[in-house]
């Protein structure tokens, strides 16, 4: 049997620095002939000669760091944006879920939104009618069906949205990181539904996730992307360790440019111990070619989606004095109960909280794989916070 999807030499190029690509106004177009020629715009390959086949009924996880090209690949597969070269042969109806609740309108009622969203996702009215009760049942918002969506809590909106999507019946389903929605109970329900879709209904599923647990549960094959290229396309068990190893690579940062003022030249980070009591060992080197006042450091930890989690200040008194020299310091940060995912660390140094010598944002990162709750099978959602406070039953 022919593969249901054939991706051949797929390449997507973006121009960067080209002004007419970014700032779109008629003025630019009119002024163009009169302007000195801009520097040749540099191009950026979001996808670089991607080749793979997907057999009918296969379930494939697409993983990679931010900026690896995952979302671009999904966008081309869902025909939202065209490739620059190469092609994809599709042999089936594709439905894509790049976002939950596409086309939801706050003024329309829940019922109306089910129809609107369903039809945008490619369902026929008859199909929506057929599944309507199941959709509402799955979402658990039947009491508010005739209430405008703007009065829904965001959780309720997501549940309704996912429920519509759950009843799509395409041959190929494309999903981008939409599992991380709703409360834990609902997430479990979604994960089960997805498992059902990919394993039992024999549908072809391609999905992107940063959650390795979800990838392990839902797919048998995984594709690891990095820098727009396929690094590995193999069994999930083979690909995931490779991905995690690559993430570790960002643990060491060296300053790219030179400066005389007090600054970090190197920051590196290592995870020690196990969940839920992890330790980060941060080693940093500070250099100054000028006289500097004693300084202290702070490390900000944020999730890779940009949520700030906390600031660690290893020593409140300015303790670093490296005028005309370079020194290395080691610090230890305890982090308790972080959810699995990628986290980024920014480093700050200064003599006073109101004065900064150097501030390097998101320069090193670490990846947490295991849940802080041993035995938890359903995924954590960053919507519920990035930290899982330690909790236990007292009166059992």
């Amino acid at each position, binding site marked *: 049997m022919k593969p249901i999807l054939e991706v051949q030499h797929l390449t997507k190029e973006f121009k960067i620095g080209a002004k007419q690509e970014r700032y779109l106004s008629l003025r630019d177009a009119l002024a163009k002939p009169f302007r000195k020629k801009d520097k040749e715009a540099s191009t950026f390959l979001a996808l670089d000669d991607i080749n793979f086949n997907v057999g009918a009924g296969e379930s494939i996880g697409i993983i990679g760091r931010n900026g690896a090209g995952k979302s671009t690949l999904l966008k*081309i597969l869902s025909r939202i944006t*065209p*490739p620059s070269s190469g092609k994809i042969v599709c042999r089936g109806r594709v439905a894509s879920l790049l976002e939950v609740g*596409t086309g939801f309108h706050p003024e*329309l009622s829940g019922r109306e939104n089910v129809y609107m969203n369903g039809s945008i996702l490619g369902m026929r009215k008859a199909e929506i009618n057929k599944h309507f009760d199941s959709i509402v049942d799955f979402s658990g918002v039947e009491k508010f069906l005739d209430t405008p969506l703007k009065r829904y809590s965001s959780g309720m909106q997501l549940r309704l949205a996912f429920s519509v999507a759950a009843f799509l019946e395409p041959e190929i389903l494309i999903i981008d990181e939409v599992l991380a929605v709703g409360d834990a109970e609902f997430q479990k329900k979604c994960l089960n539904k997805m498992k059902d879709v990919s394993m039992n209904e024999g549908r072809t599923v391609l999905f992107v996730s940063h959650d390795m647990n979800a990838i392990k549960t839902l797919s048998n094959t995984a594709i690891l992307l990095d820098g727009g290229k396929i690094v590995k396309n193999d069994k999930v068990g083979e690909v995931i360790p490779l991905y995690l190893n690559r993430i570790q690579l960002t643990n060491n940062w060296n300053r790219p440019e030179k400066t005389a003022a007090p600054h970090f030249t190197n920051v590196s980070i290592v995870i020690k111990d196990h969940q839920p009591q992890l330790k980060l060992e941060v080693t940093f080197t500070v250099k100054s070619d000028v006289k500097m006042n004693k300084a202290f450091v702070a490390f900000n930890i944020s999730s890779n989606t940009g949520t700030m989690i906390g600031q660690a200040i290893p020593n409140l008194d300015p303790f670093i004095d490296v005028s005309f020299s370079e020194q290395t310091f080691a610090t230890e940060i305890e982090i308790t109960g972080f959810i699995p995912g990628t986290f980024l660390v920014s480093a700050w140094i200064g003599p006073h909280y109101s004065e900064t010598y150097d501030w390097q944002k998101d320069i090193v990162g670490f990846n947490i794989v295991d849940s802080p709750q041993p035995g938890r099978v359903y995924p954590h959602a960053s919507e519920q916070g990035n930290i899982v406070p330690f909790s236990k039953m007292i009166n059992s």
Partner: protein
Amino acid sequence: MTEYEIKAKNKFSFGLAELIQYRELFYFFTWRDVKVKYKQAALGILWAILQPLIMMLMFTLIFSKALKVSSDGIPYPVFAISGLLIWNIFSNGLMNSANSMVNNANIIKKIYFPRLIIPMSAILTALVDFLFALTIYVAILIYYHQGVDFTKLFIYLPLSILITVVTTFGLGSFLAALNVKYRDFQYLLPFMIQFLLFANPVLYSAKAFTNPIINTIMKANPIASAIQLCRSVFTGQEVDWQGVAIGSSVAIVLFFIGIYTFRKTESYFADLA
């Protein structure tokens, strides 16, 4: 099983088969826009009737009472409303469709469906308003005991609507495509529409033009043809069929230019919007 290819440049087509496949989306987009438009208004859909009514009263006051503009021998309100009905399909449809791609950018960036559905539905929304506005039209005809030629009514009126919709669709999809890339059109359009309102024989008789050059331009103007057709149902005036033929041809040309431009550029909308 459907088999298709996703490539950098697909061969040009109007994509009719796909439009038919996704036909239900026309209904849903139109339905959504109509619903949302009047949802927060206490008077709701009544506004679709009130808006042209107020416009008609306003223009009657200015053009008929104050300026004594000739209205081809029929009561000025009947004259004005028969022009305004067609005009409103055009102006609202053009406004809606020109801004439609930008307004629906969040959907375009997340899901695929034939993009033409968006500007087309935007015009259908204006047509729904028109259907409601027809009720005042009937009311005014009764009020003024205006005789109606029914054979003309069932041929001329649909024909004039068709010409208007085809023209609006051509210009609308053209502007929608340009607007994605150059938002300037969003700001330019209200002026264009205002200018066109006064440049078209909506509020005054086309006979007011005596300059032969302007008369030639008016012949090529599909909206003027549509208004003329719509009016002749009530005035019993002879229709200048040569003018209508020219106007219709212009409408068809605009239609194809609009779709062509739109289809040529639509694949990059998601990157630009």
